[in-house]
């Protein structure tokens, strides 16, 4: 039993991990087919896990409604939302347009899902503005650099700002778009590259830790 619970998963992870790693160096068709097969298996596992997740979602919200817990009204919307999208799509067979006519699914997609998604994304604009008010305060040297960079970048995006820059600093010969391009392509990219390199190396070591079974929290305990 110990072998199945402890050693089999570790062995599977190591073998699969090493095979995937090896497939980068082996161009043979077998290797290409193996990678494709693994991708397919990943999709299948995801589909089953999704079913599991959906069931857990329904069970937990149903429990909330039954026990009249705080905010149980919102739990009803989970089921309502689910039915609004799934029932029309079953009726129309997953098609949004049939013979030039918008189906139930097409209608719910355009006027419910589209609208709600766009709204959530738009709410970001309000949050960005209120965050900007709070966080671009010069409390330290780094904050000052942040403030200057942010100020120049936003100034350059606004036509009035461009004209203001031209009138005040036009004599230097550095247009604001040149300064913005410099900020975006030199210090910003340098910082980004540094972070990317660190992340890449961290990813390699983390992967090695998992492949060779050093981090095995995902397995749980006996």
């Amino acid at each position: 039993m110990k072998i199945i619970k402890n050693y089999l998963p570790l062995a599977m992870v190591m073998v699969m991990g090493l095979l995937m790693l090896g497939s980068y160096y082996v161009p043979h068709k077998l290797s290409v087919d193996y990678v494709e097969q693994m991708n397919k298996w990943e999709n299948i596992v995801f589909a089953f896990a999704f079913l599991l997740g959906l069931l857990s979602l329904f069970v937990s919200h149903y429990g909330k409604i039954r026990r009249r817990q705080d905010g149980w009204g919102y739990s009803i919307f989970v089921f309502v939302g689910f039915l609004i999208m799934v029932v029309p799509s079953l009726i129309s067979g997953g098609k949004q347009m049939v013979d030039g006519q918008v189906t139930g699914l097409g209608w719910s997609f355009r006027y419910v899902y589209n609208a709600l998604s766009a709204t959530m994304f738009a709410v970001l604009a309000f949050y960005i503005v209120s965050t900007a008010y709070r966080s671009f305060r010069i409390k330290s040297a780094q904050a000052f650099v942040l403030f200057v960079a942010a100020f120049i970048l936003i100034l350059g995006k606004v036509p009035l700002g461009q004209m203001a820059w031209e009138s005040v600093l036009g004599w230097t010969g550095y247009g604001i778009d040149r300064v913005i391009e410099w900020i975006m392509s030199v210090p910003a990219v340098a910082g980004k590259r540094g972070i990317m390199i660190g992340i890449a190396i961290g990813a390699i070591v983390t992967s090695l830790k998992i492949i060779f079974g050093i981090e095995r929290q995902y397995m749980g305990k006996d």
Partner: protein
Amino acid sequence: MKENLLKFLKIDRRWIFLALAMILFVPIIKPIGLPNKTISKDVQNAFNYLDKVPAGSFVLFSLDYDPSTRPELHPQAVAALRYAFKKNLRVGIVTYIAGSTGLIQQLIEKVPAEAGKVNGTDYVVYPYMANAVAAMTQMASDFYGIYDKDIDGRDARSLPVMKGVRNYKDIPLIVNITGTSILDFWVAYVGDKYNVPVVGGVTAISQPGYGPYLQTGQLKGLIGGMKGAAEFESLVKEPGKGTSGIDALNLAHLMVLLLILTSNIILLVVRYL
């Protein structure tokens, strides 16, 4: 006086939301038409690459954005598609995001009809594919290995729009408009590996992340956010939602500028005066 200033510094964010909402309403009700002078280099490059494609060639559009990023990316797609039709290019549309299918539907209801283009002869839409990387790799040897039927079930090989198209060698340009990281895949697995020019359209937030790719020339051009859409629209001379949204964008930027200046001035006054 200091107390009042401090109170203003700690103002309830809902007042800021209200002020922003009022400022955004104004250009929607009455367009102001703020001038848009500069065209960024990357948008110009994106336009140039699309412009250079000879008439009658096949261009692949990969439209991978869902309704949440629609306001920024849909105008880009509309402008690019309009220009492709204007230049009499044949267009193939693919997608790897399930949420895009509805938006592509809306796109092809409007744009081809305006240009008098026919489905199957001038453009074709392919069904959604779940595994982007697998599809991209397959298209390198045989396009029809993964897309043998278009979204209406017709045999792709028989369509006039696909004549002479077998794999990436026959596709002079790929345009990828996305709010996800799919552009990274197009650049790494297709543009760099098979030397196919890739031009991208992304949200303004993701735009700085593509600096390295643009510098090395792996990504040939980039349209960033709504401003990029407006610039692209002005280059293709077809003002659309991007241009009309720019007014609101400009005013919002102005408000952010004023807010950060105000908060810092108040901070200075409170600390040192």
